[in-house]
């Protein structure tokens, strides 16, 4: 597509529930990143994919968070047993190589009640 697409744009869930957030990167971009942004903060790195494999998952806060990219294109961020502290905007970004600017989607706003 023309840009990075993220769905849903908004997700409200209850504490303890499971959620999935989807990212469709720019066509042809091999690198895909997930970031999390809390109110008044800059984006915080979560995980990076180069192709199908997670090249760096050092930013995932704990084992409740998991992400996949099975065919090297669309990625899904999965959060188990959600907590109120998980509430944030989850941003996806892609680029064509290992360096250079990232192109971001509009984000998925997650609210855990």
């Amino acid at each position, binding site marked *: 597509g023309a840009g*990075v697409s993220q769905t849903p744009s908004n997700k409200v869930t209850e504490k303890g529930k499971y959620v999935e957030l989807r990212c469709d990167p720019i066509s042809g971009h091999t*690198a895909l*990143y997930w*970031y999390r942004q809390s109110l*008044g*903060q*800059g*984006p*915080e*790195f979560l995980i*990076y994919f*180069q192709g199908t494999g997670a*090249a*760096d998952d050092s*930013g995932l806060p704990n084992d409740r968070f998991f992400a996949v990219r099975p065919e090297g294109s669309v990625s899904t961020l999965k959060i188990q047993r959600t907590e109120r502290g998980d509430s944030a905007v989850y*941003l996806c*970004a892609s680029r064509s190589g*290992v*360096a*250079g*600017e*990232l*192109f*971001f*989607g*509009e*984000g998925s706003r997650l609210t855990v009640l």
Partner: protein
Amino acid sequence: EDQVTQSPEALRLQEGESSSLNCSYTVSGLRGLFWYRQDPGKGPEFLFTLYSAGEEKEKERLKATLTKKESFLHITAPKPEDSATYLCAVQGFSGNTPLVFGKGTRLSVIA
């Protein structure tokens, strides 16, 4: 550990009042420094990439400059539509390092 500090946290300008935003960074070998604009409820929008000290880039009323320790985003004669949060990020040379972002500067331009 790569770090980015932006100042001020918030800036309020009158329309036409030029100013500068600061981004101080520490990185183990700079591969690139990036400026983004973010409007409320939107994802960051790419503005500039700077690669080496002394480099400058311009786009409309914005000019970004880079030294070995900091970058400035100069805003000349701003308009209300320039109101946004401006984010600075760095990428180092160590492996496939992600972009590390600062907290941003919230700019408000009043007509």
